[in-house]
């Protein structure tokens, strides 16, 4: 008896351009509906990949993807099966197949895709293993600890100064997109955006409506600098917007400047002031490059964890070769035991019958324990089918195959 086949059909940023990926990308509901229409399947669709995992053949899954793409995907999609498909899913869940190695969002997306449908035993098993290994990679390695973008690096650096950012006040200067992202990132860690300053107060007000804070004109910057902990600047001004002379004589806590603008908004002399720390865009990009190098080093450890999990999946699938033979053997033995007990049932008392029941059950279990263990071991080493056939032949189980 051959176990059910695990199939994967998909495309990702590795093999498909964004024009094609956006045609096959589905929102969560549409992905779940597609998976259900294919029977026992799970559809994982993100901005970087659309993949269909199916129990059984992959032809219908391929047809579905081609229908979405409105073109033949021959030579573009990857089609993987069994152990290779499982290994791919484990790498995806661990973030090892992502654009930024170790990014954590994909694990939630894998979980959502799995929970959106009601998968059969094979898909249930492989997805549960994928979620477990994804979680283990994040807890046992440092692959996800370092920021992978300028905005998250800015927030991580602020945390290196202040620790917890709860209650820290942020001043956002300018209406640049990356500056706003950095400020939002700080806010997601608990900081509050206290002021938004811009050359035109109207623009400051618009940004403040999105991110919070009090809108200010630039000439009120010196006052605001005395009331905040973190300053994020991203104006398009050709000259410095924040000068060393604007910074009030230092208070009892540090002042952290994140200057994302080019040309720079903050006068470099600010970095020399006591208690002031200044990172410009080059500094932030250098920090990100360094942390990405660290992620790649951790990826090697993560790959080992994924490989171990793939091995466990392989062993589990191999054990499926012998499970029917083991079940038949146990059923046959149990039938013989029950029949023999029935023959003496009328000649023994109730107590004696209970004793016989117990003793014969124990003998049976002890006799079958070792053959069961050995068959499972043999299955892992690829001899499972041979052992299963031998057991069926020796015990006359052929008709129960």
């Amino acid at each position, binding site marked *: 008896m051959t176990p059910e086949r695990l199939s994967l059909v998909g495309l990702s940023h590795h093999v498909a351009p964004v024009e094609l990926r956006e045609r096959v990308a589905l929102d969560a509901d549409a992905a779940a509906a597609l998976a259900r229409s294919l029977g026992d399947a799970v559809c994982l669709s993100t901005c970087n990949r659309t993949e269909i995992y199916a129990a059984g053949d992959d032809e219908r899954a391929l047809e579905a993807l081609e229908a979405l793409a409105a073109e033949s995907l021959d030579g573009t999609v990857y089609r993987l099966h069994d152990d290779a498909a499982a290994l791919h899913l484990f790498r995806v869940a661990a973030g090892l197949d992502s654009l930024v190695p170790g990014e954590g969002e994909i694990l939630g997306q894998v979980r959502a895709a799995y929970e959106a449908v009601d998968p059969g035993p094979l898909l249930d098993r492989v997805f549960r293993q994928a979620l477990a290994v994804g979680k283990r990679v994040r807890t046992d390695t440092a692959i996800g600890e370092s920021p992978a973008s300028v905005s998250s690096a800015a927030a991580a650096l602020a*945390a*290196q100064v*202040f620790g917890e950012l709860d209650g820290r006040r942020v001043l956002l200067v300018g209406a640049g997109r990356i500056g706003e992202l950095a400020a939002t990132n700080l806010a997601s860690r608990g900081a509050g955006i206290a002021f938004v300053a811009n050359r035109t107060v109207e623009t400051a007000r618009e940004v403040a409506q999105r991110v919070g804070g009090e809108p200010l004109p630039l000439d009120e910057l010196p006052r605001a600098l005395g009331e905040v902990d973190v300053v994020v600047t991203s104006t398009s001004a050709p000259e410095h917007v924040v000068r060393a002379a604007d910074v009030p004589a230092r208070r009892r806590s*540090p002042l952290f400047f994140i200057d994302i603008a080019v040309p720079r908004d903050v006068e470099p002399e600010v970095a020399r002031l006591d208690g002031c720390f200044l990172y410009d865009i080059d500094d932030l990009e*250098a920090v990100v*490059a360094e942390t990405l190098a*660290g992620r790649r080093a951790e990826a090697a450890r993560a790959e080992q964890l994924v490989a171990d999990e793939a091995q466990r999946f392989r062993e589990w699938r191999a054990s499926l070769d012998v499970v029917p033979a083991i079940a038949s053997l146990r059923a046959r033995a149990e039938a013989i035991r029950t029949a023999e007990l029935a023959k003496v049932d009328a000649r023994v008392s109730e107590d004696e019958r209970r004793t016989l029941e117990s003793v014969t059950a124990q003998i049976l279990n002890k006799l079958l324990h070792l053959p069961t263990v050995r068959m499972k071991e043999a299955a892992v080493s690829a001899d499972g089918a041979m052992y299963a056939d031998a057991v069926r032949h020796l015990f006359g189980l052929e008709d129960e195959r």
Partner: protein
Amino acid sequence: VSVAEVLFWPALLGYGEAALAYASLRTSPLATWGVRIGWLAQTALLGVQAARSDGFPWAGWAGSLNLFVWLVVGAYLIWGCRPRFRLLGLAVMPLAAALFVVARVGGGTGAGAHPRYGNLFLVLHVGLVLAAFAGFTLAAALAALYLWQERRLKRRATDILRLRLPPLQSLERLQRRTIDVCLPLLTLGLLAGIVRLRERGGSIDALEAVTLATWLVYGAFVITRPVGRRAAYVALGGFALVIVARLALAGGHFA
């Protein structure tokens, strides 16, 4: 071989293991066990010393060094023995292991000391002063870490998020709290010594003078509440006096 001598080795082994394990991020979780096991073994060692002695057994310079190491590691266990503070462990544990060896070489880890002073006085005076010194040692390690982290932030070190130190403000807060707790201990310990000195007469020796100077430095710290780099420098300045008091002058104080 006495029980006290036997207990010395697991304690040293624990501290040594911790000192080595803190050097690597991967082995640092094992370091915590080294600190705990070593400290428990040293606690047992001190217990045996106390049981076998007629009175307070750590009045001599080597014995007091033994007690000092126990207090330093104990303070570290309470304040800073956590993964984020790995580098603090790397600063404290090799020092603790080295001083522990010095204490043994000086005969401070054996049993059977016969002090010439009363127990209550020695517990109050030596115990409190050493506890304060242990705390100041920890505060100095925190101050050193602060200066290093501050320098890396100022210089925009690219590996700042790879080799992570505790946040600047956490280091400063912990350093200040440690000094706040330890200064009253030093004050009480000194008062006990001064009362004794007045009862018996005599003049202030070099160790007492240095300890008083230490008290003045940390007293100024608590009153003026310096922040940032200045606070770290004051903590390190006070610790320099602790080193002088502890290592250079402790020998003849109870002679």
